[in-house]
């Protein structure tokens, strides 16, 4: 009896032991199997349309152009305190391995840790790779750690350094750097226009500065100021591209030099902004106000080319972007410290150009994500001259209107909305070109009469001249590429009290880089930047309802009664939109629930019937 009990107890003990051992073994298998898979089985396939998680074809093309060995040295801190940072590092290392697999024997990876090796730290310092401070929460304490997260790429004696790697856009960073190394030539870019903030007493006083845009350009290209045009100094043909930013009262000779630069094969981007800030009273009180419009001095040239910006602004309620600023208030009575309130509104004078407003055929626009133009001027719908193609790169929505310069003082959201409703009800909304690309053989407006250079003694007015010369003028002489934009604010720095970022906005930076790459023949880089999620906007039920009720594209209201009638119908459209929205959301869900319930009833009744019979 006791031996039976003992053998049963042993069997139970064995069973329990077996259970625990199996559990341990399975646990170990789970850990080891996953660890091995993590290290040696990087097989994944991105099936999504955006292809954000697969290496792009552009990267493959750039890496396949390597003819010699590319050495990539990582300067990553080995022992990290932040878990998130450790995951980001693992992500970048994984991508580096994938890139190495793509490049084959042409890429070599070397890992250095500046936080443990003084030699590596010295080398990182020489390369300009600085540590960044990373904060992480450990228990209840915030731990700060100086972290190195940089890369050096060396190829044929040349080098590129990424001082801080961005895990979200690492592929673009890396492939762009490889592209620059392989190409071995930095594009030379000229800049014509004021770029520092000035607040002088002249009527050309400007609130604009372009320091960030210039820094972005200088990071990858050589940038130089273009000067002396009105004195007859020609633009160097070595410049691949010239930016003309917020041109103001340019001398005719300067316009001529720009034209001849294009005729010699140079590329040009002209960003026009004719708003006179001093007229707006934003810079100084009591200024001598003109008509609010500052002439560019380029009208003759742009008219001849078929792309003249109109001195008005586009008011686009459908694609309004957010505008934010700090409104200064009276100082704190107790502390005396300055105070400000934060104000934000959706302003139709800031146009966030959606997919429908981007030309899908153009390399600059296809890789672009909603740039925002601020107080943009529409470009007049002129017919391009023979032999010239004009393509609208950026356009407004079909509900846009034109408004006079100076009307943008309205910043109250309710006032803005009511104005938008009134304008929608009054009809006349239409699409406006905000940026155009001109290509082909551009005619010169100076044929037969080149303007003479400015002469202090002969010309009374430094902004114009009536004298001409008989020098040879090139016309229709090259396959030109010129971009004319009805806005210069999109690339300017934010002012003191502005929360809106202008060039700080990533989409605007993309526009700038895409323009440069397209005009300097670096189209592979544009392809790389296509790796951003596509905008997949939801149906705007309100716009649909307005259209269905015939409240868009109307002629202007003839009287107040007509306007009131349209306003009532606009409100009806809004409530109809809300109910359409709810129906679209819930009908499929409720149908599914009805289906489940119906199935359940039928099933159970059927079973019960079967059992009863």
């Amino acid at each position: 009896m006791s031996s039976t009990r003992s053998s049963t107890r042993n069997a139970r003990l064995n069973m329990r032991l077996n259970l625990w051992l199996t559990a341990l073994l399975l646990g170990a298998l789970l850990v080891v199997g996953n660890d091995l898979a993590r290290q040696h089985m990087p097989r994944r396939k991105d099936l999504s349309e955006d292809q954000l998680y697969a290496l792009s074809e552009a990267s493959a093309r750039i890496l396949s152009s390597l003819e010699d060995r590319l050495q990539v040295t990582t300067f990553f801190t080995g022992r990290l305190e932040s878990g998130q940072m450790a995951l980001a590092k693992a992500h970048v290392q994984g991508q580096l391995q994938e890139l190495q697999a793509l490049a084959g024997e042409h890429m070599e990876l070397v890992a250095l840790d500046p936080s443990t090796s003084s030699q590596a730290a010295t080398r990182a310092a020489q390369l300009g790779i600085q540590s960044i401070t990373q904060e992480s929460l450990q228990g209840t304490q915030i731990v700060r750690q100086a972290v190195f997260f940089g890369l050096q790429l060396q190829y044929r004696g040349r080098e590129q350094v990424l001082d801080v790697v961005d895990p979200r856009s690492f592929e673009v960073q890396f492939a762009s750097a490889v592209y620059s190394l392989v190409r071995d030539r930095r594009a030379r870019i000229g800049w014509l226009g004021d770029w520092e903030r000035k607040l002088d007493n002249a009527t050309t006083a400007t609130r604009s500065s372009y320091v960030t845009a210039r820094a972005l350009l200088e990071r990858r290209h050589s940038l130089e100021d273009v000067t002396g045009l009105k004195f007859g100094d020609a633009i160097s043909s070595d410049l691949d591209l010239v930016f003309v930013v917020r041109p103001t009262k340019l001398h005719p000779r300067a316009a001529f030099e720009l034209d001849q630069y294009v005729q010699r094969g140079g590329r040009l981007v002209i960003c026009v902004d004719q708003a006179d800030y001093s007229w707006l009273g934003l810079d100084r009180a009591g200024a001598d106000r003109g008509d609010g419009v500052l002439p560019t001095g380029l009208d003759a040239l742009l008219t001849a080319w078929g792309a003249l910006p109109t001195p008005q602004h586009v008011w686009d309620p459908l694609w309004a972007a957010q505008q934010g600023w700090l409104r200064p208030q009276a100082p704190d009575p107790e502390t005396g410290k300055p105070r400000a309130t934060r104000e934000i509104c959706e302003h139709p004078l800031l146009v966030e150009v959606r997919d429908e407003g981007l030309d899908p055929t153009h390399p600059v626009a296809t890789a672009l994500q909603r740039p925002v133009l601020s107080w943009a001027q529409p470009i007049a719908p002129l017919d391009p001259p023979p032999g010239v193609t004009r393509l609208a790169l950026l356009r407004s929505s079909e509900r846009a209107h034109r408004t006079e310069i100076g009307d943008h003082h309205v910043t109250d959201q309710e006032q803005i909305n009511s104005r938008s409703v009134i304008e929608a009800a009054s009809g006349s909304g239409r699409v406006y070109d905000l940026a155009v690309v001109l290509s082909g053989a551009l005619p010169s407006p100076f044929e037969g009469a080149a303007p003479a250079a400015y002469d202090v003694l002969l010309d009374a007015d430094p902004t114009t001249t009536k004298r001409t010369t008989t020098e040879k003028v090139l016309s229709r002489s090259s396959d030109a590429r010129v971009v004319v934009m009805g806005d210069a604010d999109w690339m300017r720095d934010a002012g003191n009290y502005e929360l809106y970022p202008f060039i700080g906005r990533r989409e605007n930076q993309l526009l700038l880089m895409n323009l440069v790459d397209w005009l300097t023949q670096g189209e592979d880089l544009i392809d790389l930047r296509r790796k951003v999620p596509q905008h997949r906007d939801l149906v705007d039920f309100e716009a649909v309802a307005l259209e269905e009720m015939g409240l868009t594209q109307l002629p202007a209201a003839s009287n107040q009664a007509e306007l009131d009638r349209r306003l009532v119908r606009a409100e009806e459209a809004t409530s109809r939109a809300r109910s359409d929205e709810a129906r679209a959301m819930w009908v499929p869900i409720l149908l599914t629930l009805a289906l489940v319930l119906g199935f359940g009833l039928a099933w159970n009744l059927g079973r019960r019937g079967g059992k009863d019979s």
Partner: protein
Amino acid sequence: MSRTLAIFKRELLASFESPVAYVTIGLFVLVQAGLFFYMGYPIGPTPLPSLWAGGQASLIVLFTWLPLLLAFLVPALTMGTWSEERSTGTEELLLTHPVLIREVVLGKFLASWVLVCLLVTLSIMPVAWTVSGLGDLDWATVWCGLWGAFLLGAGYVALAQLVSALSSHQLLAFLLGALVLGMLWVLRLLVDVLPVSLAGFVDYACPSTHFLDSAARGVLDLRDGLYFALLVVFGLTLNALVVEARRWK
């Protein structure tokens, strides 16, 4: 195999006879849709806006909620798998039948998994249908996400069923199952608080990582397939051993 299929069929049909399945499906579909349309996903370092606030035709919010909701739903569906048999005494009867325990475990697993897959499909597809009518939905990501949700469901079912086998009462099985799966879900949020040597391991050990970082975004990763396969093998083998051990008591 035929005995496994017979058990699978019996368990699945039994699920449809109970009103619990219909109520659970109905509630799950409504809650998922409500969260997706109106609330978004406010948890963690990168909150996501609701459908209308985000204005984009994407199901990422729906997928992001899934690991947490399934952590409660799966134990609710599987709580009775073994514990009910045990408390009503039918387990002993079942074990005296000429079937292998692994066949019973597998049959029960397949039945619960199919039910979870059905539930996930019913909660995702109507919303996907709605969103595709409202904007340009990336269907490849939807199919991939659905597949990933099936895998996630398989892992969860295997673990919840193991917990059910260890528990003597349904309620206890549900609470323990929800606790275990909830803990696994929470781990992902703790990555930045844990010691860094653990961060990578913990992140990788978390089932939601293998769903949210790949399938939910439209990426098929072999490593995720292997992870869930190992998790299922782990859960089911232990489940069979636990039941086997009881047979010897």
